[in-house]
């Protein structure tokens, strides 16, 4: 109908223009008709009047049509302009634009359609906006969950973000305890019974629950919620892969209508948070497990007292334990990543040939494991190579190592390198050497008195000794027996003191008396060697308390050493004085003196220095002296110059008779 009317109006406009075009036609006809009438001699006046009337009428009609066309055109432009304005407004983002339909024709219809389109656009834009808000919210939560710190912080951040997004007042998370009896609030440790509340129902069903106003709805909120001013609340299941791990709740002190978008957000966040928590716990469990295993392995690795390092198949060091660092004297960081033959200087035992490649046990272990299976079967599995070799310590010290090398085979049976375990056996070897030396020395010291006992007894039994001589023989046997006994006693004393089993027999010590006895005992040798033994005991030390038997041994050994390690005519001075809170015993001589290199080892058991070659002894004397001094809590200091003499100073903490 509208269309028809529009056509009609257009037709009318055309008609007007058609009528308007009559005027020139009429004028042209008038001209031609007048010429014709004039030819036939008719009445021109009536013709002219008729024509004039037609022209006047046409003119009026033209004016009228023009005005009408103008009016109609203007009426048609109004909705077009409106449409233009609306389009421009929508282009500028004003989706609230509504056009007024000024007509009911096609343009009015277009305006109405335009308005419907604008409404639809507005609605879709609004939905898009809401969706965008929803996605932004979910994205912000996802951002929190994608960088989890730990479960507590993650939960706190998610809850805070949701409270902010949904304009709530508070929130939290409840998780079931291990026994499943209670739900525990992760933030406050608040406990709820695991059954009978809306939270437990959410965990059971895995469905979100929202409540606009708990005072108006039939739900079973937790007691603490009922007793508070909380109105709006929601409980969101935290869903993991196979189960619901807990419930996240949000509360508001005002009624809160949860929109569908909010519900969707909450559901998505609940699922994301549940998965994130599951991942966090899994990660923590794995990390803990790995740390435990790694920590254990590392602890074991570093607790091994033997040095240990591993190399790859190119002999590049890949790992090293602390003992290895200590023994080699090089930090692991300086060795790892470098070839062992370039950094660790092994030498042939007691030789100068550097061990590398052919002789390197590590390399040999690698090569051996590459040998054909038959060879390996012959050698036995696993192929392990052991040897002793020297190592040149960065300090220049040469140490003896016992080295065992084995190939490293991975789980697939592939050769991935070798492991070297080594031990510093320098000290062990030194102890072995000292033990051997001790056995030699002790057996030597035992053999001489035994010669008297066995030989002389044999001769006495065989009756080869005169009666007058036999007493001398028996005395010698007795003396040598005593000598043997003393030797055994010295050994036992040292052993006893060292083991802490020695009894400290404290009593009054009369140094004058001790020195008198010693002089008497050593009188023969003193006389024979023309030794001058001068003693001086200060009055202040007369009431010293100590183990006199031990101190007797101490003085006897020190003086005997001065006698034994000196030439005839030597002067020995024994000076015992009070030095503050200590008793100072100084035994000095003008004997052979001791080489500097021997001095640090003098108190070590069985050590016999340079002079040990030409003098008899067990190497126990000074060791025993040192033990006795330590038993008294004192110190022993030896100063000597080769060729000039030796001075031994003992300081014993003062312990008086009346203290």
């Amino acid at each position, binding site marked *: 109908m509208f269309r028809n009317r529009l056509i009609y109006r257009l037709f009318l406009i055309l008609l007007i223009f058609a009528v308007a075009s009559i005027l020139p036609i009429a004028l042209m006809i008038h001209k031609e008709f007048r010429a014709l009438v004039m030819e036939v001699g008719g009445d021109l006046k009536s013709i002219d009047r008729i024509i004039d009337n037609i022209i006047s009428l046409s003119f009026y009609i033209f004016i009228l049509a023009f005005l009408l066309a103008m009016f109609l055109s203007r009426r048609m432009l109004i909705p077009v302009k409106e449409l233009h304005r609306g389009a421009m407004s929508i282009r500028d983002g004003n989706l609230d634009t509504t056009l007024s339909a000024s007509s009911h024709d096609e343009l009015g219809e277009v305006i109405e359609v335009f308005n419907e389109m604008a409404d639809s656009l507005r609605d879709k834009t609004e939905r898009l906006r809401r969706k965008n808000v929803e996605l932004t919210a979910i994205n912000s939560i996802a951002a929190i969950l994608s960088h989890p710190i730990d479960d507590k912080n993650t939960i706190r951040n998610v809850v805070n973000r949701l409270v902010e997004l949904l304009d709530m007042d508070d929130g939290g998370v409840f998780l079931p305890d291990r026994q499943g009896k209670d739900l525990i609030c992760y933030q406050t440790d608040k406990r709820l019974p695991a059954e009978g509340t809306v939270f437990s129902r959410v965990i059971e069903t895995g469905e979100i629950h929202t409540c606009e106003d708990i005072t108006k709805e039939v739900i079973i909120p937790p007691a603490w919620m009922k007793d508070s001013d909380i109105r709006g609340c929601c409980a969101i299941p935290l869903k993991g892969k196979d189960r619901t791990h807990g419930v996240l709740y949000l509360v508001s002190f005002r009624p809160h209508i949860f929109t569908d978008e909010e519900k969707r957000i909450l559901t998505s966040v609940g699922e994301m948070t549940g998965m994130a928590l599951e991942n966090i716990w899994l990660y923590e469990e794995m990390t803990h497990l790995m740390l435990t295993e790694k920590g254990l392995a590392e602890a074991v690795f570093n607790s091994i007292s033997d040095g240990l390092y591993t190399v790859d198949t190119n002999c590049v060091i890949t790992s090293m334990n602390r003992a290895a660092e200590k023994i080699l004297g090089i930090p692991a960081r300086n060795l790892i990543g470098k070839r062992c033959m370039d950094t660790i200087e092994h030498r042939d035992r007691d030789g100068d040939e550097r061990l590398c490649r052919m002789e390197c046990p590590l390399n040999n272990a690698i090569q051996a494991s590459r040998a054909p299976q038959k060879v390996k079967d012959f050698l036995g599995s696993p192929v392990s190579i052991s040897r002793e070799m020297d190592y040149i310590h960065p300090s220049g010290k040469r140490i003896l190592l016992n080295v065992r090398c084995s190939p490293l085979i991975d789980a697939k049976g592939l050769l991935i390198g070798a492991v070297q375990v080594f031990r510093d056996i320098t000290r062990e070897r030194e102890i072995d050497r000292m033990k051997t030396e001790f056995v*030699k020395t002790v*057996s*030597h*010291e035992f*053999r*001489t008195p*035994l*010669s*008297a*006992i*066995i*030989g*002389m007894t*044999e*001769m006495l039994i*065989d009756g*080869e*000794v005169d009666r007058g*001589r036999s007493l*001398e*023989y028996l005395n*010698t046997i007795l003396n*040598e027996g005593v000598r043997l006994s003393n030797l055994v006693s010295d050994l036992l004393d040292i052993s006893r003191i060292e083991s802490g089993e020695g009894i400290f027999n404290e009593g009054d010590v009369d140094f004058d008396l001790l020195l008198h006895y010693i002089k008497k005992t050593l009188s023969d040798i003193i006389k024979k060697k023309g030794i001058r033994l001068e003693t001086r005991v200060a009055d202040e030390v007369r009431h010293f308390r100590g183990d006199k038997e031990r101190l007797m041994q101490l003085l006897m050994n020190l003086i005997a050493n001065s006698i034994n390690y000196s030439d005839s005519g030597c002067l020995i001075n024994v000076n015992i004085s009070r030095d503050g809170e200590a008793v100072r015993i100084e035994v000095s001589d003008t004997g052979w003196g001791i080489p500097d290199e021997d001095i640090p080892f003098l108190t070590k058991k069985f050590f016999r220095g340079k002079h040990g*070659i*030409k*003098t*008899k002894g067990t190497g126990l004397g000074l060791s025993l002296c040192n033990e006795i001094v330590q038993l008294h809590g004192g110190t022993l200091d030896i100063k000597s110059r080769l060729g000039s003499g030796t001075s031994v100073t003992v300081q014993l903490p003062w312990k008086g008779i009346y203290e």
Partner: protein
Amino acid sequence: MSKVVVIDDEPFILMMIEDKLTRAGINVITLRESKDALPVIRREMPDLIILDWMMPELSGIDLCRMLKADPALKDIPVFMLTAKGQDADRQLGLQCGAAMYITKPFSPKALLDMVNSVLNPE
């Protein structure tokens, strides 16, 4: 009459050997200081020398080397009588020219037998 020089810093060893060998009719000269031994040996030219190893100032093994290095004395048999009983010591003693290496404690009877075996080979 055979002559034997015995050098040891232990007096009872000297006494015991002297008594045993003298009873067997051997002339025994005893010395406690090894450093004084060479002139005595050169003067006495004994048939046998019995030497202790461990002696102050000049060890028995060094004295043995000196004896073996001396053309006039090198043929005098030397017995090492010592408390050093290790195989290595024995080897060293024999390498230095000792005819016998006897370790202490010893049997005087066995020592006499060994002395006789050297002095009277038949």
